[in-house]
């Protein structure tokens, strides 16, 4: 008899498994090829031994009886829930044949590649789509309203993204010499107890609070942060942009902004013509001038001076441009035109938001806004952290650029304890974020020209290299300008989570000729696939992660039947679809991507993780001063002007408002008083649960025990007014549909708003239609629309709609 031994293996989390955006170091205990225990790695700088409920439940996840373990082929009709086991060879052959048929008959762009949240997957889905020849990689959320729009908005005016500084860039973390704990942090629409989204370990903020950071919380709900905040600004959902304008108003009018930063590093001094309202370009004042260069007014010579974007400096380096005032500028045709500065334009817009007005829009008392703004502005250093609430509104770009201006104007950009540029460690791209070039590119520019939405929306053209979701759904029905015939769906839940108006998505999926789904479990979405492939968990794959720092490997520590990792699956198919595919093995590809780090996959694996040293562009601080951001190594930013653009040149060129401002969202009591008569409550959605990541984990017993039912939070008074008791089942209904939730009486929500959990389906119920794992029962997305994306194609009203509530009948409750 052999005695089985437990061995302990180090690896890094990143989906599938916990569902989050990963990065924690874990110790996996393996016995007889099975996971018997998982613990946090106390040596890992990211989590320092800590671990969340979802990773700690990995034994129940990895060994779950319902896991997909073999490729399956649908044998019944779509939605009948009938499947047969097939071999990998059969599955891949059939996929190759059927996708080739679509490519030959309709062109590669007729296959859409759908991806879910930020898992270890975007690079590999892009690799497959591009090898096949399709530019249509789609994040299936309306207005792509999660993270990507924020990245695009920040990129528009600042070049690089920036995140709060918890010394995550250094192996010695908080002890790092030169690091400073933020004195103040604004937590904007982000709830901690639950998740670690966007690659940040959420509880770093708790670490900072213990070290003295004071919180300003901006959230209509009393979140944990709200309860611990020095200032809690409880705004009406969808009015965040009015609030940011109010904060800017206080900061500018009180003079608590960093004049040196504004003068030296922003385009505040660039002139705008009074007649056209557009920026003066060098070509306006000189027939030989360049359109890409801008013009300021030099107070020393009392004449125009050209801002040369190629050199990121004024042509006369001694020039001292005016920041404010009106000047008369001679144009190349000899006429004169009055001009004002971009700073004046910015301040004029900000002046539109006196605090009384902001109070009337947001519901936040003017005094509170003033105190919070001054506290943030005076605190040195201060940081901002935001959640997905900022993306989930149609005018997200005017909002996000306003928040970005907060940290820039207060001089908190890329300083210790401020908002710090987020670059991939060693510039190794493991995760092809929208706008980031992965290892595998489309072969031709022409192929990208067919990407849905690219020619309509500037952010999609410049920064967000995905198809526009709402337009893609429309095109499935319209087939205009070309038909969509197939969909590759990888670890994404368009039916139960990503898709608003899921009834319409169901019709769309039913219309397609061929669907492949790659997942860990069968879901409502996989029921519409022709072939379902079993994905490996993070414990069952070799991969790596550089989002943002450190660079680290994910190590395969076990196998589960025939489950294969997402990169393995896509690599195999990419080779089949592209005869010129340049990599022999997946590890050749990994080595290629890792080249900027100077390490091979094997070398990095031996180290475990690596932190970029000082002087590398992915190591802070003050990189705009050191020339570490731009490809030409000049000081400045990766923007068209090379400056932080308080007045966005790209948005002006695209006919979009260049300055932050407030727009009332489409479905609020203010914009739709007619609807408010029948639907008097504000419906907000998406409160995070500590047990689940979006639609996942409902089948994991330890996690479901924490959060067993779809819950809607309602103020006790509101519940009483409706004659509903705590714990009773109710319907939430509006003009689009209704969903069933369990009422939780709690004053954490205001009386006029309810907060419904998202992502609910019931894996314990029947797969076959009409049940579809009960997804029609409590999916709140049935009340939320498609096609309400912002003017720039980004953002959508997901966290603010309107509804009414009423009790379920006893029969409806007993029905299950």
């Amino acid at each position, binding site marked *: 008899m052999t005695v089985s031994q437990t061995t302990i293996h180090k690896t890094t989390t990143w989906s599938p498994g916990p569902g989050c955006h990963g990065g924690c170091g874990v110790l996996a205990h393996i016995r007889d090829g099975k996971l018997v*225990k*998982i*613990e*946090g790695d*106390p040596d890992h700088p990211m989590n320092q*031994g*800590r*671990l*969340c*409920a979802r990773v*700690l*439940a990995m*034994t129940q996840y990895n060994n779950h009886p319902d896991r997909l373990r073999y490729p399956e082929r649908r044998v019944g009709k779509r939605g009948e829930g009938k499947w047969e086991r097939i071999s990998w060879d059969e599955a891949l052959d059939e996929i190759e044949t059927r996708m080739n048929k679509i490519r030959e008959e309709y062109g590669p762009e007729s296959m859409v590649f759908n991806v879910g949240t930020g898992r270890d997957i975007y690079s590999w889905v892009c690799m497959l789509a591009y090898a096949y020849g399709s530019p249509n990689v789609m994040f299936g959320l309306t207005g792509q309203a999660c993270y990507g729009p924020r990245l695009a908005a920040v990129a528009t005016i600042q070049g690089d993204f920036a995140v709060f500084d918890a010394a995550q860039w250094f192996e010695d973390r908080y002890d790092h010499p030169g690091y400073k704990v933020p004195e103040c942090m604004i937590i904007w629409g982000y709830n*901690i*107890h*639950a998740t670690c989204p966007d690659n940040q370990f*959420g*509880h770093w903020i*708790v*670490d900072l*609070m*213990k070290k003295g950071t004071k919180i300003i919380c901006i959230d209509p709900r*009393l*979140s*944990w942060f*709200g*309860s*611990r905040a020095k200032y809690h600004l409880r705004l009406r959902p969808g009015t965040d942009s009015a609030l940011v304008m109010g904060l800017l108003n206080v900061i500018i009018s009180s003079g608590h902004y960093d004049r040196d930063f504004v003068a030296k590093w922003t385009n505040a001094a660039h002139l705008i013509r009074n007649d056209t309202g557009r920026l003066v370009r060098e070509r306006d004042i000189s027939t030989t001038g360049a359109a890409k260069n801008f013009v300021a007014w030099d107070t020393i010579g009392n004449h125009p001076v050209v801002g040369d974007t190629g050199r990121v400096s004024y042509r006369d380096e001694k020039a001292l441009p005016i920041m404010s005032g009106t000047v008369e500028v001679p144009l190349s045709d000899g006429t004169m035109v009055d001009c004002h500065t971009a700073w004046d334009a910015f301040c004029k817009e900000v002046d539109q938001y006196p605090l009384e007005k902001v109070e009337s829009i947001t519901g936040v008392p003017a005094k509170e806004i003033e105190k919070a703004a001054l506290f943030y502005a005076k605190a040195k250093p201060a940081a901002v952290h935001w959640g997905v609430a900022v993306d989930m509104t149609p005018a997200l770009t005017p909002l996000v650029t306003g928040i970005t201006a907060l940290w820039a104007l207060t001089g908190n950009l890329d300083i210790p304890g401020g908002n710090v540029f987020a670059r991939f460690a060693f510039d190794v791209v493991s995760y092809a974020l929208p706008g980031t070039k992965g290892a595998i590119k489309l072969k031709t520019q022409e192929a990208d020209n067919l990407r849905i939405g690219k020619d309509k929306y500037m952010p999609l053209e410049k920064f967000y290299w995905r198809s526009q979701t709402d337009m893609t759904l429309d095109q499935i029905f319209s087939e205009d300008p070309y038909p969509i015939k197939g969909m590759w769906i990888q670890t994404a839940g368009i039916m139960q989570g990503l898709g608003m108006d899921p009834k319409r998505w169901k019709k769309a999926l039913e219309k397609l000729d061929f669907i492949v789904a790659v997942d860990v479990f069968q879901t409502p979405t996989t029921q519409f696939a022709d072939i379902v492939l079993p994905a490996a968990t993070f414990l069952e794959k070799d991969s790596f992660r550089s989002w943002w720092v450190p660079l680290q490997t994910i190590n395969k520590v076990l196998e589960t039947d025939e489950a294969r990792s997402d990169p393995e699956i896509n690599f195999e198919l990419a080779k089949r679809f592209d005869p010129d595919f340049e990599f022999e093995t997946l590890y050749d590809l990994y080595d290629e991507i890792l080249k900027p780090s100077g390490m091979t996959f094997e070398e990095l694996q031996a180290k475990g993780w690596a932190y970029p040293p000082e002087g590398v562009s992915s190591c802070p601080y003050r990189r705009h001063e050191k020339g570490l951001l731009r490809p030409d190594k000049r000081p400045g930013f990766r923007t068209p002007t090379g400056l932080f653009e308080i007045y966005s040149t790209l948005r002006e060129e695209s006919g979009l408002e260049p300055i932050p401002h407030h727009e009332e969202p489409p479905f609020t009591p203010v914009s739709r008083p007619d609807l408010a008569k029948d639907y008097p409550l504000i419906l907000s959605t998406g409160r995070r649960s*500590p*047990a689940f990541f979006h639609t996942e984990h409902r089948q994991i*017993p*330890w*996690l*479901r*025990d*924490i959060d067993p039912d779809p819950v809607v939070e309602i103020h006790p008074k509101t519940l009483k007014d409706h004659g509903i008791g705590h714990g009773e089942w109710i319907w939430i209904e509006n003009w689009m549909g209704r969903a069933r939730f369990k009422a939780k009486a*709690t*004053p*954490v929500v205001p009386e006029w708003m309810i907060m419904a959990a998202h992502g609910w389906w019931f894996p314990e119920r029947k797969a076959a239609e009409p049940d579809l794992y009960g997804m029609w029962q409590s999916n709140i997305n049935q009340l939320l629309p498609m096609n309400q994306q912002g003017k720039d194609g980004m953002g959508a009203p997901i966290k603010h709609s309107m509804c009414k509530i009423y009790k379920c009948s006893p029969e409806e409750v007993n029905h299950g």
Partner: protein
Amino acid sequence: MGKKHEYGLLIDYEYCTGCHTCQVACAQENNWPAGMGGIRVNEIVQTLPKDKYYLTYLPFPTELCVLCTKRTKKGLKPACVQHCMASCITYGKVPELADQMMKKARMVLWVPK
């Protein structure tokens, strides 16, 4: 005189965020099925004057808490203590924990069964 209760858990409930890590860490360590475990997190919302509220999450060791004696014998922290995302649970000798308690408000000291 009965058994002496030397060890306890000190909870800093100012910083417990309600992540429920302790619950699952305990269930994994001690093999409890869903619904059972040595620690549960409770939510308390206290109404304050002027329309304010204070939200508290409070981990409570149940009848099933054994203070992870198997782990502590090996010099490891109890599973809930090691994994706590907010690092708000401390394991130790009761007098030492009581001493720590006097230095900071919003603490509770549990001496499980």
